[in-house]
């Protein structure tokens, strides 16, 4: 184990090269619905149990199935009402289990990025060969069913190895959602030297973190989303920021939670200067316009700090 994987350098938030998003926008806003498949009876990874209760954990399994059977269509309809195209964090096997969901998203021109094969298959313990096989399998499956080669990666169940970023970049990916170190896109160092970045995805705004880990009341979650937006929107005048709401159809689409979510979407998209985008669009825009300047600024500040 290492103290730090050295994926990125320290880069203070102040005095960075100014980002301006398309149309002069100051905040790039994206919503990332996780569309996942959890297996009822997966092989048990020695590092992490798939379910808290003994087999069959019907509570955990069935509420996640609720997300696909009931919740997905609700969220899709809601996002459409506010002109938001989802960026789907996709368990690739869902293309095979529930192709109707994928087709419905594709019709609305949503983006698909990779979230592994199943959310019950973790990266822990995979050899480099095995992890590469899993990453490519997921990308190939998603491309076969959607016509889109995934540009982004959120490792399944946020399970990583030391090599995850390297392997995804080698497979042709351009952005990761796995790092939570910043409110703006940042370059990520990979062993192959590819131009590869992190874009803010946010654990704090993630509905599952809010509802399951932090046990928030739905209305408080909605207020948190608006508060988070207000601050990033204000700061975006200095240099463009990114706000993501990562969602799960089995959390945010429950009947007692949708209203709070809708109030936040209505509020955020009601502002001028908000670029409603997808993950790939944000990544591409940053790579094209700001990536090299960011690298140069990071280098310059590091050298200045060391008195070079």
């Amino acid at each position, binding site marked *: *184990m290492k103290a730090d994987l050295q994926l990125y350098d320290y880069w203070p938030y102040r005095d960075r090269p100014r980002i301006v998003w398309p149309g002069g926008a100051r905040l790039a806003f994206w919503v990332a619905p996780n569309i996942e*498949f959890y*297996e*009822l*009876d997966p*092989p048990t*990874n*020695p*590092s*992490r*149990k798939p379910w808290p*209760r*003994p*087999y*069959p954990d*019907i*509570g955990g*399994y*069935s*509420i996640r*199935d*609720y997300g*696909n*059977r*009931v919740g*997905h*269509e*609700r969220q899709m309809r809601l996002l459409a009402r506010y002109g938001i195209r989802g960026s789907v964090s996709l368990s690739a*096997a869902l293309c*095979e*289990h*529930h*192709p*109707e*969901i994928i087709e419905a998203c594709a019709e609305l021109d949503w983006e698909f990025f990779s979230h592994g*094969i*199943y959310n019950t*298959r973790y990266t*822990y*313990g*995979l*050899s480099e*060969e*095995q992890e590469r*096989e*899993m990453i490519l399998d997921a990308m190939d499956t998603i491309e076969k069913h959607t016509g889109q080669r995934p540009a982004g990666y959120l490792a399944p169940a946020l399970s990583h190895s030391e090599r995850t970023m390297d392997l995804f970049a080698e497979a042709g990916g351009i952005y990761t959602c796995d790092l939570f170190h910043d409110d703006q896109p940042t370059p990520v160092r990979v062993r192959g030297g590819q131009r590869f970045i992190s874009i803010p995805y946010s654990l704090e705004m993630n509905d599952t973190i809010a509802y399951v880990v932090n*046990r928030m*009341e*739905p*209305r408080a979650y909605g207020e948190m989303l608006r508060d988070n937006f207000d601050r990033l929107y204000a700061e975006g005048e200095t240099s463009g920021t990114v706000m993501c709401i990562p969602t799960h159809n089995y959390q945010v689409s*429950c*009947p*007692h*939670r*949708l*209203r*709070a979510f809708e109030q936040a979407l209505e509020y955020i998209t009601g502002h001028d200067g908000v670029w409603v985008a997808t993950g790939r669009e944000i990544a591409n825009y940053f790579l094209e316009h700001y990536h090299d300047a960011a690298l140069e600024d990071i280098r310059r500040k590091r050298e200045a700090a060391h008195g070079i």
Partner: protein
Amino acid sequence: MAFNKEPLNKEPLDTEFLRYPHRRRGMDHSRYQWSQLHERAPVKWPDGKRLALWVNICVQFFPLNQRGKPFPAPGGMTMPYPDLRHFSLRDYGNRVGIFRLLDACDRFRVKPSFAVNAAVCARAPALIHALRERDCEFVAHGWDMDSLHHGGLAREQEAELIERSLDSLRDATGATVRGWLSPARNESPRTPDLLAGQGVEWFADWVNDDMPYRFHTEGGDLWAMPLSNELEDRFILMQNLHSVESWKQQVCDAGDFLLAEAEASGGGRILSLNLHPWLMGQPHRIARLEAALGHITAKPGVWPALPGEILACCGS
């Protein structure tokens, strides 16, 4: 989950981990058909009603000598024996709290179903008698809250547990008893098969839908009834530690949303409230239940219904 530990696996992982035997269209098991709610034909309630309001009241017994196999039920004993604080607070629900719930239901003309641990029949026959007097539906809720259904039970053991629970409840209530709710909503891999063999027609353990659907078993199909876990008082108040005011807000938001969805779909939806008298029956909470029931039942198109009445509209 292991934190700050070297992964336990020695690389590479067994090849089993990269094989996916159920990666195919539909589910990864054969218990029910995959389908999305919005694609199904609308289900209609009587008289053009839009939202069925199903209130289920749990009547439970938490033994003091809890074994906790395979885990202590939520709401179970947490202190060293004898955990009198939790034992007696749960009993409070059957002695005091439930009568507040009944009054609230009567006030808003809601007929609740009662999911009864069979052990309560012998412990509180006067309560069973009082419930029998009402126009209601009894639902089997296993033996007690420390007799969980789980894979560690032999098939015969579990079959006997189900039979004993159903027989006791049927004897004490004189009711047919067609519905089932597993204690702690836990099942063994065989529970649905065993239920179907003993005259059960529906169960409410799975939370993957907002409408009833057909669930396949060795003994023929059951109906899986939607009884929300995420909206129940125990989940919101005890597990999430939300305020009771927030519980009321969440129930009202859910009711408003489902009613609107029902109208848009041209069919019906169900708002199901699972209540525990030992929680919601407390003097400081009961007004929020009344407020929630008042909000929902004041809406046109709301139909307070028992699960059997709901299923009678669902075909076969």
